């Protein structure tokens, strides 16, 4: 009885942190929930993955309710790219039985490591360090992608951190769309990385401002997760006594995370994301080589 209560409150606390970090960075919080449940509470990996799906949906719905209202989430960009992520997720779920995970973890980890470089350069530029601009599109003269114009992707939001309206266009929509498909594939196949790849596609490939990228990723991850949540539920992988404190803790955390996002500077969010991206990449490589579960 006391053990039950202790475990309940540990899960609640872990989920609160996951919800805060997840809503701030556009991730589902699986990176925190899965290791905490498997390593500290010795929960079966299957059940931990089920709890992670619930965590993703709770983070997404809890934070996007605010982000959509504040126009930080770009719902047109989100809806369009959800076609690719959800098709990717279905394909991934199909392939899951056919291909072994370990090599895939390494492949996806390498993609993340590759994206650390442009992201690091962006941070350096934002901090005013003298570096060579990344590629040509840092010149700023390039107009929006014609596809982006056609689909009405241009938007703006009010950023309380700098106290002004930030307007933006999107570039390289096809490249972003391809990454989104693979983001869906990764989540269907491995049950992870749904948010990181989305933020990389939006921010690094398509040039969306960081805050709008994490908010739009948050808006999208719920749908990608819902696509596989039904399967998890029917398989009996969503243990109600573990998923309940996860859901409640994450919702409370997302309440804090959405407020933090509004206050923090874009570059601060990018730096935190950069660090988490590196951690996730290392975690994936370790899992790929069978070092950790």
């Amino acid at each position, binding site marked *: 009885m006391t053990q039950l209560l202790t475990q309940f409150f540990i899960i609640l606390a872990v989920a609160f942190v996951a919800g805060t970090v997840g809503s701030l960075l556009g991730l589902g919080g699986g990176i925190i929930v899965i290791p905490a449940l498997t390593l500290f509470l010795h929960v079966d990996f299957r059940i931990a993955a089920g709890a992670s799906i619930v965590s993703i949906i709770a983070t997404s719905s809890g934070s996007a309710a605010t982000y959509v209202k504040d126009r930080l989430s770009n719902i*047109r960009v989100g*809806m369009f790219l959800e076609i690719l992520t959800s098709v990717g997720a279905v394909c991934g779920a199909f392939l899951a039985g056919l291909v072994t995970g370990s090599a895939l973890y390494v492949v996806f980890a390498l993609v993340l490591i590759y994206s650390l470089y442009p992201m690091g350069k962006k941070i350096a530029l934002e901090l005013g360090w003298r570096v060579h601009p990344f590629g040509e599109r840092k010149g700023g003269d390039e107009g929006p992608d014609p596809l982006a114009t056609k689909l009405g992707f241009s938007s*703006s939001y009010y950023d309380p951190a700098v106290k002004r309206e930030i307007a933006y266009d999107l570039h390289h929509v096809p490249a972003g769309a391809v990454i989104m498909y693979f983001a869906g594939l990764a989540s269907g196949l491995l049950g992870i990385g749904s948010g990181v790849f989305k933020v990389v596609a939006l921010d690094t490939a398509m040039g969306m401002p960081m805050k709008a990228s994490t908010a739009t990723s948050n808006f999208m991850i719920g749908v990608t997760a*819902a696509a596989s949540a*039904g399967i998890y539920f029917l398989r009996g992988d969503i*243990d109600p006594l573990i*998923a309940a404190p996860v859901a409640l803790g994450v919702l409370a955390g997302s309440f804090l995370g959405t407020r933090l996002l509004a206050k923090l500077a874009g570059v601060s969010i990018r730096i935190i994301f950069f660090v988490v991206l590196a951690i996730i990449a290392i975690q994936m490589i370790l899992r790929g080589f069978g070092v950790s579960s």
Partner: protein
Amino acid sequence: MKNKGNPAPRPVGKEGNDAPDDPARTTELMVSFVLRSGVIISAAVIVIGLMLLVYHGMAGLTSGIATAFEFPHTFGAVFAGVAKLDPVSVISLGLLLMIITPVTRVAVSIVAFAMERDWRYVGITTLVLLVLLVSFALGKAGS
């Protein structure tokens, strides 16, 4: 709250006023409302389930959360359990409501884009909903 004086991205009229009847704003407010309601309702049902669990003295759960135990994982079993006010089934119902919230959000977006007469996005959103429904159907077939 702070964005109350937000200028609309496409200024309506001579000055970029807040334009409360801006159709794009209606979509955003509808989507936000669906997400917020879904979260509040599912959280409330989960909390009711937990309270029932405490009230019933958590019989049979003495060994701790991390131990595997039998719980309903088909829709029929959950609804049957809810009818009997079985705490674990009520919690599962709350979790199911949370899972369908993003799907509901997609369905409501179709209506919102139709109200905006943005037929391209009605098409895009319908496609997303279809893929989601296919994935649910596949999940059911596979398990």
